[in-house]
């Protein structure tokens, strides 16, 4: 057992090991942003209500504002910075950009990660499954429809393994 107010913490974030000395009461959100410079994870309500701070832990979305880093030693953490691979944006990121599913963008990292976790479990989710999976993320700008459509487009592109153009109706309304 240990009982110290500053702790040495080893975290694995986006596939890289990091070791640092942090005050034990700093949340994962604060450590990601302030100590690791990973400011893609957003600071919203800090009370578990908005999902702006969501990251993936072992592939599942969790709220970094309600997590202590020391609790996550030995787990795989992914932030939005880890989504792009080999210089290429993730299909979800491309679909969000193509369809205007981000306006101010503050909520986007949380949505992208929650959606990534969903698409890993189900490659062709229904609209209701998408709504359920994204229910913990708030967006004050888009009205959500573009976000759902972007997740559907990304899922389609990932299934076909190619870049399909968004449908006209999705781009310009019906």
């Amino acid at each position, binding site marked *: *057992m240990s009982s110290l107010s500053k702790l040495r913490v080893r975290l694995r974030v986006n596939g890289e090991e990091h070791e640092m000395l942090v005050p034990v*009461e700093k949340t994962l959100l604060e450590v990601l942003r302030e100590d690791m410079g990973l400011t893609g994870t957003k600071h919203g309500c800090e009370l*578990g209500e908005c*999902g702006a701070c969501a990251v993936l832990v072992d592939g599942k979305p969790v709220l970094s504002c309600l997590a*202590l880093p020391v609790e996550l030693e030995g787990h795989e953490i992914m932030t939005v910075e880890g989504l792009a691979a080999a210089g290429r944006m993730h299909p979800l990121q491309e679909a969000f950009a193509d369809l205007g599913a981000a306006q101010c963008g503050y909520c986007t990292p949380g949505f992208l990660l929650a959606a990534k976790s969903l698409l890993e479990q189900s490659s062709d989710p229904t609209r209701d499954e998408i709504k359920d*999976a*994204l229910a*913990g993320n708030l967006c004050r700008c888009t009205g959500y429809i573009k976000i759902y459509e972007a997740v559907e487009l990304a899922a389609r592109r990932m299934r076909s393994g190619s870049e399909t153009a968004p449908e006209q109706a999705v781009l310009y309304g019906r």
Partner: protein
Amino acid sequence: MMGSFSYVRAGSVKQAVAALAHDGARLHAGGTDLLGCLRDRVFDAGSVVSISGIEELGGIAALSGGSVRIGALATLAEIASHPLIRERYPVLAEAAASAASPQLRNQGTIGGNLCQRPRCWYFRGDFICTRKGGSLCYAFDGENRYHCIFGGDGCYIVHPSDAAPALVALDAQVSIAGPGGSRTIAVEDLHILPKQDIRRETSLEAGEIVTEIVVPPPRAGLRSTYRKVRERGSWDFALVSVAIAAVVAAGKVSAARVVLGGVAPKPWRSIAAEAALIGHAIDESAAMRAAAGAVEGAQPLAQNAYKVPLLRGALEEAVMSLARP
């Protein structure tokens, strides 16, 4: 920012109980309610004792004899998706799936869900209310639309858990470890009313922790359901909720438990609603009688009288959804 504390990672239940004996020690399982309370300064922590690494406290498994053991660290997401729970105890799977948001369900544990602190905005805010050692319940003549209609007495919180009414409906047992050893009680006896002790929501003594829950084997003919009404469809606490477990034999209800959420400081068992069902077929008239029974004796505050018809409606719907197996 939260105030500073020291951190203790307990390797066993025994270590956790010993560490909790220190003044100002607070238990950390999934951490979602604890860290929210620390940030809101509902209380401070001298030390945070984490039990999240204690393997024996996790898992969901069938026991010989047909009961199901749910470790205190099982997450709400695990409970909501577990095949055993979904198949045998729909009321519990539905309640767990309706709680909080997907992210919080991945983090929050069943032990923490049962022991979470109230959501009353005065309690969470900068008010030294009776529950925090002050002399007033600010909700009584204040903003009380989300407060209780049963069982309030000096404090008018509702118990926020969805899983608790489901577990009471299923007559589950909860095991507790503490400085004096372990004990097992009915989940029904875990939560207490303000008149019993206004400073806490459970009968846990200082230094005690929930270690596991055991749900008894489903009886032949068991039908169960959870109906929750909330203000936002995406995720929210219950305005009212209804957990029902009924045993139907030869077309009639032979045993039933009806437990209400969101309406009282603890999961509120409605004996009147149960009596209205037992001995009858599940039909509209039974549903209406049960709903009328459930709201008997309700004492709404100035802003929450809407909970009475809402509860009636939710109860009727829940009963009718059990009309077919």
